[in-house]
């Protein structure tokens, strides 16, 4: 039987300085904190990080950024992370913003082996500046190149040993997209089950996309409820 399970440390071992790393999650849900900790511990730097946001100060990918490991961040919104906004404003990291759904589509297109997508989002805004434009019928579109990474780190609720993944609730978000869009896809899972235990119609990411599976032995506190967001 195929068995892709491995320790977090071993899973992350191939990552080297200067690589691009996609990280799933939208806020806390779906952020692979265990893999991020392993990446932090490994000490690689000059990374290009691709994530919807930068988590919050002191949490998740923000720790990588605060530790100076990230040269460039490709993201959608940093509204909840004043620390990273500060690092951006000081020039400590380069940040490239995309509309959230366009970021998702760029990543998806990378996974789908497309060269680019063409959309009209932002066509009447400053986003069109410096972008490749394309006339499509009677409309102008912005050409957005597909986005792939060397490494993807994703978080699943369940995985089997073959890498089939199931996400839970709003922890799905960017994870299934990134799980298709990197040369090395590493998934952490809260529960790892035997092959055959997941229902074929309910699997969100087929195992063929996933290279390594890391079982989360015990949930770090980071995975918990952020009390300052409880209303």
């Amino acid at each position, binding site marked *: 039987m195929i068995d892709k399970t491995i320790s977090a440390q071993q899973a992350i071992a191939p990552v080297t300085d200067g690589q691009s790393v996609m990280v799933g999650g*939208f*806020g*806390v*849900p*779906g952020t692979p904190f265990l893999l991020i900790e392993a990446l932090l511990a490994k000490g690689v730097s000059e990374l290009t990080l691709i994530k*919807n*946001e930068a988590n919050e100060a002191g949490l998740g990918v923000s720790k990588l950024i605060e530790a100076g490991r990230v040269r460039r961040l490709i*993201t*959608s*919104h*940093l*509204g*909840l992370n004043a620390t990273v*906004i500060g690092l951006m404003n000081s020039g400590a990291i380069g940040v490239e*913003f*995309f*509309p*959230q*759904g*366009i*970021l*998702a*589509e760029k990543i*998806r297109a990378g996974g789908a082996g497309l060269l680019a997508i063409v*959309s*009209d*989002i*932002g066509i*009447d*805004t*400053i*986003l069109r500046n410096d972008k490749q434009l394309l006339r499509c019928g009677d409309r102008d579109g912005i050409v957005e190149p597909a986005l792939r990474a060397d490494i993807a780190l994703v978080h699943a*609720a369940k995985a089997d040993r073959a890498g089939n993944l199931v*996400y*839970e*609730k*709003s*922890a*799905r*978000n*960017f*994870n*299934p*997209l990134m799980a298709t869009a990197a040369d090395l896809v590493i998934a952490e899972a809260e529960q790892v089950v035997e092959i055959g235990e997941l229902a074929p119609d309910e699997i*969100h990411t087929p195992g063929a996309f996933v290279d390594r599976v890391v079982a989360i032995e015990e949930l770090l506190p980071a*995975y*918990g*409820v*952020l009390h300052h*967001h*409880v*209303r």
Partner: protein
Amino acid sequence: MSVDAKTKIARRAAREIQAGQVINLGIGIPTLIPSFLPPDLPLTMHSENGIVGAGTISAPGKADRNLIDAGGTYITVVPGASFCDSALSFSLVRGGRLDVSFLGALEVSQQGDLANWIIPGKFAPGIGGAMELAQKARRLIITTTHATRKGEPKILRSCTLPLTARACVDLIITELAVISVQPDGLVLEEIAAETELEIVLQLTEAPLVVGAALKRF
């Protein structure tokens, strides 16, 4: 902005929602809208992070670590809800399945242009879902205070800030007025019970046509 103003805007905005619609509530004032909806109104609330059928803010002590809305608040879902990835979530928006989007504004122009995502050199946290929501919702309703904290108009002849989307706004709801965006400009549809027409006109830079049947709200 006073709590009263926010409440007033949210209460009035709630009246724009019709049974069966798919709606998205931006951060800020729009998140107050649900408290003013009839409890049995069938609705589908969309959240950008992959929720179709968002519910209410989670009860004290009941927050689910895997269930937040796009603003980071712990919420619940309604019966019939589903979860999807971020691509499908925005397919719903860009594909024309979002009936109404409620967003805040820094500036709105008389052509219905919206600026709400960046103040160059001062405020640039990113884009998020704002452009797609503004540009692609079937109906875009802006909920905002009528003027800035300094008393400067936010409803302008032309936006001075970089746009979120051009000619996207359908209705502007402030604590003072309800203004619709028509092909030939802005129409003042309603004014607040406790204000005067002159005050509204004074705090609005864009020309306003006073609607034939100006109502109080």
